[in-house]
């Protein structure tokens, strides 16, 4: 095994035992990037020089025994988290030249924990998409089948881990943008509880839904990442002052006697049969681990997509108003007056999907329509939240497929936004409810495409997700495969 193929905990062992150095690890990651990046296109920007000097510093720390939770571990950052002095584009032309004078809180935390940043990962423009096809910097390809999409919006973060172009990565999840690409690329992806991980420095898409989380090669790495990421941030008003447990203690713990909720609304016709079969197998594994499956209902599930596609664009239409050409980013060079500058800058700077959502959101908030759309959606959102509160009275965690289908072909759904939106059918509800969710690989289709199973838990119960995901991972005995690149 090459160093770049190992997990965080495996590399930590090697570092501690003096079997490798941070520099060697980083070099192995960049050598892999040199081979596959041209085909996969995980990154918008690589940070080789910074990574090598960070690795050098990590090696000095290792020498004096000052080893921190992520010392020398090469990570990819979705290009939606701000990095001081390094362009942060959000996958958009309008921010193609934006250099933040500040780090996102998670970037500070990861750096303080000793992590080494490899580069900024590709993504759907402003995180709006489920395929990483809307990026201004070009598509990212699924390492398991280069003709297919990796999922999105955090596609580059998922492929960088799946293709061993980093050890772990950071993504953001507004309606499934971590879990869906994790499932389609065969890696672990966790969306934490809203308020668990700081959003400061995360470029906003839909502020009441956005949450940062990790992509990792296994569940234990996910726990290690969460130990660094989670916690209160006084720079964010919606950050929650809740105790952060050591997530690693949940790894390998027994789940005997746990009640596993199986929501009937998530096992419906239209799910790809191979996906359904893999998830059924996962249920069997959970039962073998001592979990008891119980039928539950989340009655407002059918409204999730509609509610999401009002609330998220409404917030986005306001969040994206600041990209006006006045202060930073793209400014058109051919404006006659102020209004013309606004129009041309935004016309040139935003892609079609972003424009579509700005228009939907603007419409939903307009005078005369607010009550029928935004207000109604907010009311239904409360009911969706209530559904989960009721469900968690009957079970410890909920199990669902992460996505209705495996990865689809590049270009297949670009002309049909509604089809595209359906990819997030099973992931959106937890963003609306603010609860955490994890996607874990649960097998492959006959064509060799990864499938994911999703676990959902109550607010701030990430520990439970790690516990069940780890129990599943240990007992599923999935064949170890790597994408052939």
């Amino acid at each position, binding site marked *: 095994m090459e160093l770049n193929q190992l997990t965080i905990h495996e590399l930590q062992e090697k570092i501690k035992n003096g079997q490798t150095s941070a520099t060697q690890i980083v070099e192995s990651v960049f050598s892999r990037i040199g081979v596959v990046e041209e085909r996969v296109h995980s990154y918008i920007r690589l940070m080789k020089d910074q990574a090598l000097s960070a690795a050098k510093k990590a090696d000095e720390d290792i020498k004096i025994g000052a080893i921190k939770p992520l010392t020398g571990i090469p990570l990819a950052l979705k290009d939606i*988290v701000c990095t001081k002095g390094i362009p942060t584009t959000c996958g958009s032309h309008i921010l193609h030249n934006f250099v*933040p004078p500040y780090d996102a809180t998670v970037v500070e935390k990861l750096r303080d924990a000793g992590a080494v940043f490899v580069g900024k990962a590709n993504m759907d423009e402003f995180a709006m998409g489920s395929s990483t096809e809307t990026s201004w910097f070009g598509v990212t390809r699924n390492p398991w089948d280069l003709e297919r999409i990796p999922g999105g919006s955090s596609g580059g973060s998922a492929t960088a881990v799946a293709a061993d172009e980093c050890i772990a990565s950071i993504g953001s999840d507004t309606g499934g943008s971590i879990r869906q690409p994790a499932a389609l690329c065969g890696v672990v992806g966790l969306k934490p509880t809203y308020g668990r991980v700081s959003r400061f*420095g995360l470029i*906003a898409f839909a502020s009441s839904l956005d949450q940062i989380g990790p992509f990792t090669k296994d569940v234990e790495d996910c726990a290690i990442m969460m130990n660094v990421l989670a916690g209160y941030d006084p720079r964010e008003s919606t950050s929650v002052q809740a105790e952060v447990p050591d997530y690693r203690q949940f790894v390998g713990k027994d789940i005997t006697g746990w009640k596993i909720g199986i929501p009937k609304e998530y096992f419906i016709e239209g799910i790809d049969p191979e996906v359904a079969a893999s998830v059924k197998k996962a249920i069997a594994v959970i039962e073998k681990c001592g979990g008891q499956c119980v039928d539950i209902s989340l009655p407002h599930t059918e409204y999730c997509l509609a509610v999401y596609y009002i609330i998220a664009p409404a917030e986005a239409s306001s969040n994206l108003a*600041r990209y006006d050409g006045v*202060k930073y980013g793209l400014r058109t060079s051919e404006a006659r007056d102020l209004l013309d500058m606004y129009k041309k800058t935004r016309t040139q700077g935003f892609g079609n999907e972003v424009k579509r959502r700005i228009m939907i959101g603007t419409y939903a908030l307009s005078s005369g329509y607010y009550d029928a759309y935004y207000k109604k959606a907010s009311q239904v959102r409360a009911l969706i939240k209530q559904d989960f509160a009721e469900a968690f009275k009957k079970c410890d965690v909920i199990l669902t497929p992460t996505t209705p289908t495996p990865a689809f072909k590049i270009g297949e759904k670009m002309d049909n936004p509604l089809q595209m939106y359906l990819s997030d059918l099973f992931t959106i509800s937890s963003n609306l409810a603010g609860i955490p969710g994890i996607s874990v690989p649960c097998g492959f289709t006959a064509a060799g495409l990864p499938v994911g199973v999703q676990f959902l838990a109550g607010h701030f119960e990430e520990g439970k997700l790690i516990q069940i995901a780890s129990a599943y991972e240990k007992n599923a005995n999935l064949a170890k495969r790597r994408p052939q690149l």
Partner: protein
Amino acid sequence: MEFETVIGLEVHAQLLTDTKIFCNCSTKFGGTPNSHACPVCLGMPGVLPVLNKKVVEYGMKMSLATNCTINKSCSFARKNYFYPDLPKGYQISQYAYPLSEHGYVFLEVDGAQKKIGITRIHMEEDAGKLLHDEHNPVSYVDLNRAGVPLIEIVSEPDMRTPTEAADYLKRLHEILVYLEICDGNMEEGSFRCDANVSIRPKGQEEFGTRAELKNMNSFRNVQRALEYEVKRQQYIVENGGKIVQETRLWDDAQGVTNSMRSKEEAHDYRYFPDPDLVPIIVDDAWIEVMRKELPELPMAKRERFVKDYQIPAYDAGVLTADKALSNYYEEVVRLCASPKAASNWVMGDVLRFLNEERRDIRNCPVTAASLAEMIRLIEDGTISGKMAKDIVEEMYKTGSAPKTIIAEKGMVQITDEGALLKTISAIIDANPNQLQDYRGGKDKLFGFFVGQVMKATQGKANPQIVNELLKKMLAG
């Protein structure tokens, strides 16, 4: 036809917090453009607002001082519109759930107390400023003011004349300044006012179509603009026209209002709850803490001055119109124990000097201690009231204490009867004709003798003693 005017005001007051409403930047006025700015108030991507608690507390104080009910829970909303001085493309304000509601203040109208309702008080952030290059087609954006905290105080349409509107504005202004939450500077824009004005035939219940007036940066301009606007609307109606709902700008130089935008061109602000901020929960305990911190308010102080110092209501009104002035007056009274004399000197001389120079009482060269000392010197007979007039002027010019001036100019009053007797004798001896005439019944000549004594003593003779001595000696 006889018309009735209906006016409601929206007042924006900048709060005197050290830092901005959602970040730690300074709120200081002026400064190099964009020197009081950070990623948060510049609206950079990914940054988030964190509410300054002081803003809520200042807003609570104003709410309590104007009898508003503070809501147990209130929240922020986004007001969306594009303008270069608005870095995020939305202003964080309050909409459906304001800080407080249902308040009132009293005005004196035709000798009676009139209640003016306050609809609501809400918190919001200020926008930046645009600077337009006079010689080139270029505009610059200064975001030092962006994020400075404001409260907006919205009145009910309860005012019926431009004078009432101006009085209401003055009332709010003095309360804000008393609370020390706003410096009240209208020229720098820390206290701003928009007015909604309409007219209706007397007796009609239904409101007429209103115009919103903007850009009035002094009490006087508010009144002038309203007076103009009322006349304009009357003219239109009397000539068979219809008032259109619109926003109009006051042109100070021309003394007119001009249409800025019609109702059709009005923005759709697309208000919605700001997802980056959480609701503000205000409990009774917090309200009580704020209530205890409230200072004595202008109305209460006015009543106390009349009662405790026995000065006329008019004087009390003048002395309490400015908190610093009322403090100055009270300090003078405390040090000289003569409230009426203190009132006369403060209102008569000190204020006149200050007004001539448009100077603030806080920068008055005559300290309260000096003025009190001077009043004591009059009362113990060291100087005469007439001398004091000169001395106080000198005090204002030089900032010196009265005793210093008296010593420098040798202005001590002559109260030594022996010395005065000598002077008076000499004058009587030198004017035998006048003496004879006086004794012959020409009483008016008494003034002549007083004048002569004063002239001989360079005005330093104590007038009362001179009077007494002269009377005796002229009588023979």
